[in-house]
């Protein structure tokens, strides 16, 4: 997928001015966080489980080569195949080769962020294969030619009127006078339109929430049941996934599953959790005849052993974005690529480079909410700081910004000068603002004063007041 992360500032401005998006985000701000909180309160062991989940993922990453080989061994033993892909291009080529080998015309797809990451739909369509997204949210945005704006609710940026408009424009065989006022009617229409596609598909492609090394299984977690229809009905099932989805055992997967739905939607467990191991067995009346796993690296192996290894623990639950004030203000499309919110701000520069995505780790208030709700305790704010440092070290920021930072650093490293300047500035600003108590505008600080007032300082710096107090003086 083509990235527009460079244009984050313009994207964010467009998001803030988009009324429908703002209404949709308002629904999200009250929905997900509250439901998660209630689910966590119902499970007293939640905090301990987070710690265990973190250690399971850390253990797996430390021995990733071993567990990948064990996974492959068990996939082969159950009659499936594994296709290793270094790059998006290799992943797409592997899927295309499988589709061609069975003369596939129609491919149904369950939700897969890896498929988004490698741009699979475009590649298949270019080769004459019709791809049909079956997750309701993914289906809606496929019709609208938009990328997903959220990990688990890809159409969260839309209001139901917009969905109705899209369905009217696309489902031309249906009665134009039909009512599409309610979400219920929209769901029913999508169900009716997609059912024949499920039945007609030659290949079904799903993602994987987890891969289990000890059994060679892939696990998907859904609420709609679309993933199951996608992988059960066609002759071929392809799992699009990446290296870090691996866990050693079913028991380990279970611990992560206990955290996933609660962190994501606040459910105790999603409606459908499906463990798939190989193709149809002798005597089976249904299920795919072929089972393929396409295993994508795309820069992940290079993150091991470094300051971004912790990011590979991510289980894509979306809790970080659901609790992020920046995401909640600008929406997922502003981030300009597949992954958004705090996890996107860390992962996107890792996968497409900090030169393209340097804005993302800067778009943070460092409130720390993301880390505090992360089920596998990824230190997201710390890693955003790493990216900021790297961006500066690689000289990627604009010259004025760099000059400002350098000047600030030069002053900050000289405490006497720093204190003198701060004291001077607070006295001057305190005197200038003594009437109104705040500034409407201020030279060089338009970025701040354009949207809010700057309170006038009291006239003294904290440091000087503190020094005075410690010396026995009184503080007014």
């Amino acid at each position, binding site marked *: 997928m083509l990235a527009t992360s460079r244009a984050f500032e313009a994207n964010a401005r467009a998001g803030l001015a988009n009324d429908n998006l703002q209404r949709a985000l308002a629904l999200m701000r009250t929905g997900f966080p509250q439901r998660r909180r209630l689910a966590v309160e119902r499970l007293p062991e939640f905090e301990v489980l987070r710690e265990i989940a973190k250690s399971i993922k850390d253990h797996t990453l430390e021995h990733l080569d071993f567990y990948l080989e064990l996974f492959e061994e068990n996939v082969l033993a159950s009659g499936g195949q594994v296709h290793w892909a270094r790059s998006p291009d290799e992943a797409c080529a*592997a899927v295309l080769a499988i589709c061609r080998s069975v003369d596939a015309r129609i491919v149904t797809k369950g939700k897969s962020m890896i498929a988004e990451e490698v741009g699979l739909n475009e590649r298949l369509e270019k080769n004459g294969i019709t791809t049909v997204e079956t997750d309701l949210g993914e289906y809606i945005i496929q019709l609208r030619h938009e990328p997903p704006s959220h990990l688990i609710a890809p159409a969260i940026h839309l209001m139901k009127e917009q969905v109705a408009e899209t369905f009217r424009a696309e489902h031309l065989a249906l009665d134009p006078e039909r009512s599409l006022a309610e979400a219920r009617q929209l769901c029913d229409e999508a169900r009716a339109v997609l059912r024949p596609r499920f039945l007609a598909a030659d290949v079904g492609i799903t993602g994987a929430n987890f891969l289990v090394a*000890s059994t060679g299984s892939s696990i998907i977690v859904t609420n709609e049941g679309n993933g199951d229809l996608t992988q059960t009905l066609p002759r071929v099932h392809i799992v699009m996934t990446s290296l870090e989805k691996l866990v050693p055992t079913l028991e380990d997967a279970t611990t992560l599953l206990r955290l996933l739905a609660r962190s994501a939607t606040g459910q105790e467990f999603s409606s459908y959790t499906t463990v798939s191991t190989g193709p149809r067995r002798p005597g089976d009346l249904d299920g795919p005849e072929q089972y393929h796993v396409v295993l994508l690296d795309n820069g992940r192996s290079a993150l091991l052993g470094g300051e971004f290894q912790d990011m590979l623990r991510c289980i894509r639950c979306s809790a970080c974005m659901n609790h992020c004030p920046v995401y909640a203000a600008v929406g997922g499309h502003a981030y300009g690529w597949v992954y958004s919110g705090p996890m996107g701000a860390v992962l996107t520069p890792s996968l497409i480079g900090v030169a393209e995505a340097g804005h993302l780790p800067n778009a943070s208030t460092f409130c720390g909410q993301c880390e505090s709700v992360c089920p596998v305790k990824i230190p997201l704010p710390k890693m955003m700081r790493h990216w900021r440092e790297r961006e500066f070290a690689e000289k990627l920021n604009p010259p004025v910004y760099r000059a400002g930072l350098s000047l600030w650093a030069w002053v900050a490293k000289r405490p006497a000068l720093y204190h003198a300047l701060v004291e001077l500035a607070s006295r001057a600003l305190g005197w200038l603002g003594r009437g109104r108590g705040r500034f409407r505008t201020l030279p060089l600080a338009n970025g701040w004063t354009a949207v809010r007032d700057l309170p006038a300082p009291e006239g003294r710096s904290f440091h000087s007041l503190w020094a005075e107090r410690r010396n026995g003086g009184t503080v007014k």
Partner: protein
Amino acid sequence: MSEAREQILAGIRRSLKRGRLDAARETELRDRVAAHRRNLVPARAAALDDPGRVDLFVEMAEGVQATVARVNSPAAVPEAVARYLAAENLPADLVLAPDLSLDDILWDARPLLRTRRGRAEAGDTVSLTRCFVAIAETGTLMLISGAETPTTLNFLPDTHIVLVYADQVVATYEDGWDRLRTDGGMPRAINFITGPSRTGDIEQRIELGAHGPRRLHIILVDDRQKATDGESK
């Protein structure tokens, strides 16, 4: 593609600043995997006795919009099915799993109930299956695929009826894994089903029946031996 495989594995080892693990460490890890060690299991269900576990299963399943009818014997099942279909205004046409254990149920006791055995096809409206075990912790049904238990029955029809015997209710998912290992190993598909299909993709409003069944009805048989029929309280 094997070139990609070797490069990826080599890249991982380079990043982790080591070579391939030595044989002793690999054996250790294989032993760890083979031990099927449980991590922390929540006390919610694990601490309950048999009746408490069944009650928790019912409570959790109803909490996710499954419906539950409790009957006291297998003989009461056809009546319970017919009554449910009538109450929901559904046709009395059932596709049953070709599961031999369903033969114990005297379907002919309700002659108006038309049954077919097999996998689900487009157009089937109601399916009836058993489950492998039922998990009290979250009101979850664990179903496995096999010659007698086709997966399509769990997803294609609008209404899925599942027969659960009270002695099949276990506390946790881990109990399900243990049972699976003593019962012949990993099937092609394991379906954990917790309530009917749903979506929140439009304005985060939960709507049931996105793509899978709109209704999930559980008939819980308290005593699989009991010969008398009738619905228990």
